[in-house]
């Protein structure tokens, strides 16, 4: 499923690899009984470490640095600071030369965990920031409709003027003012054009 708000470019090849590794990671974490913790750690690794230290990200992704060096680097940096499962997983990735797919793996792991736990990600786009009560109301309504726990992701887009756009997976429910205006214009033009065709003489000025 595409995420409308994904800031990074979409790379289907990495996403495919990511899905496979994520499945393996979740399996290993489940055996250790710490699925939630591992996925949370992985997210934190991306957001709190890699995003802030681009050099580290570059070093880990670089094919010029060998597995031994990367493994040593991972040991020095993370040993004792993260769960054993994730640490070993990072080393396996390093061995397979797949550390460049780490972000895709993290996204896929989060998605798969959501699916396992019956949660669904919903992107909501509004023209103005959502207030907390409104946010809760939307989550409550959507959960009731979908029969699943809803994880709300909010986005802002001033160009849509007003209303609400909800995106679940690849399906968009568009209730924005801007798209309604476009629809209205199209409908008016289409219907008027049909009526012109049906009775052209009504609109002609007899000269």
């Amino acid at each position, binding site marked *: 499923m595409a995420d*409308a708000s994904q800031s990074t470019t979409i790379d289907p090849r990495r996403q*495919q690899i990511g899905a496979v590794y994520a499945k393996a990671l979740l399996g290993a974490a489940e055996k250790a009984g710490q699925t939630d913790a591992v996925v949370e750690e992985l997210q934190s690794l991306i957001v709190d470490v890699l995003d802030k230290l681009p050099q580290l990200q570059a070093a880990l992704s670089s094919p010029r640095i060998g597995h031994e060096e990367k493994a040593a680097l991972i040991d020095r940096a993370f040993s004792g600071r993260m769960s054993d499962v994730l640490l070993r997983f990072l080393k396996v990735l390093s061995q397979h030369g797949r550390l460049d797919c780490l972000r895709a793996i993290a996204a896929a792991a989060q998605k798969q965990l959501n699916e396992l736990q019956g949660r669904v990600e919903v992107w909501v786009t509004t023209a103005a920031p959502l207030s907390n009560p409104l946010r809760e109301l939307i989550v409550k309504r959507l959960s009731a409709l979908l029969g699943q726990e809803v994880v709300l992701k909010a986005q802002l887009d001033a160009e849509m003027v007003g209303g609400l756009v909800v995106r679940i997976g*690849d*399906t968009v*429910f*568009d209730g924005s003012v801007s798209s309604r205006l476009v629809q209205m214009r199209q409908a008016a*033009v289409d219907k008027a054009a049909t009526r012109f065709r049906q009775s052209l003489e*009504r609109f002609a*000025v007899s000269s």
Partner: protein
Amino acid sequence: MKFNAGEIASVIEQEITHYESQLDVREVGTVLEVGDGIARVYGLSGCMSGEMVQFPSGVIGVAFNLEENSVGVIILGGYLEIEEGDEVKALGRLLSVPVGEAVIGRVLDPLGNPLDGKGPVNTSERRAVEMIAPGIAGRQPVREPLQTGIKAIDAMTPIGRGQRELIIGDRKTGKTTIAIDTIINQKHSGVKCFYVAIGLKESSVANTIRVLQEHGAMEYTTVILAGASAPAPLQFYAAYAGTAMAEHFTYGGQHALIVYDDLSKQAQAYRELSLLMRRPPGREAYPGDVFYAHSRLLERSVKLSNELGGGSLTSLPIIETLEGEVSAYIPTNVISITDGQIYLQPDLFFKGVRPAMNVGISVSRVGGAAQIKAMKDREVAGGLRLALAAFRELEAFAQLGTDLDAATQARLDRGYRMVELLKQSQYQPMEVVDQAIAIFAANKGGLDDVPVTQVSAFEKAFLQYMRDVKGQLRSTIAEKKELPADLKEQLLAAITEFKRGWKPAAK
């Protein structure tokens, strides 16, 4: 015509007041990459093969390749405004074109948009571009002739309504001319004509349209144009779009004729698309399903059963060969699909035999069922093919320079005159009665004492004589559509009578 702005405004106002807003629910994806008329789209997880999608610029695309992680979309229109990251919307519909009486006399692009500057196509009826051909229960054998008005074709490779007759030959051998002549000859037959120009120079299409207009043929003809500058997807879909427009009449119990000019360019457009989509190339780099692309198109030509209205769709696909190479991939494919072929040869063309049809290898697998009885008669066109084949054998032998006996010389002489008689200038289709009378006259030795150079003048004068003086006899033959013994005798008498008064023009 002037328009009343106030009236128009009031209609739009009404529409707006009665407008009920509906929640717009759509299936979307994101453009990953775009170029060369194709786009790769991420998402669109529920999209089906052949479904229409829309880009933000309003351009339409068709889902062509469904892959594990992306959807390959072919873009029907300008792809320069599409950018990476654009939202693509699935429309949940199949590609369709406007159909009905309103398309007749128009020049349209493969999506049904007008190209002739005569305003919008005024119809609300649409028909899916890709349709499955009717099965065996919906068909019946071809039984009515479709007169091309060309002597050589109507006599030796007759075409029936619902047949698919391939016109094949090198460049500049008169392939398009045969198709145009056939369209011109449908003037009083009520057959609706569709000319699909694929990958042709727009200047030559403009010329074709002008010829059709001059002969009053645009009144019942539609031109579907995807010229050489049109993107490959449009060139590929043009043939199917034209067929959909023609099928509307077929399924309405009428008769239609469609010319695909030409299918080799369409195959090349399909090859381009497939290679861009990274489908594996096969022979001559064409994709594996290029045969299916042509067979599913030509299978739609049909003579419908009486329960379905008995309409018909006749098709004349054109294939251009290179240096007479008929054993290339696309020509053999299309030859095996069609019900016969008209093979045109450059050497005949330059010898002045026009139409430059090679009688020996041109066939029509429908045969006599597509001829009127007068034409099928053994003394008219019945034995013509074999007689001409025998003549050519004899001619080759005579070139050795041996002395010939009188009987052989006589057969040669008649052969020369027959070849001369079958020549016909372009855009001058002939009525089938005239064709039968002329061929009968030649078969019965009426031309034997006419100098070879005078054959066409004799034919012209004789047919004029038949029309003016023997109008009664001519219209009887036209009415009965057969040639019983008594009519033959009257015809022979007319030939003798005419020759008494006819002198070859002095040089």
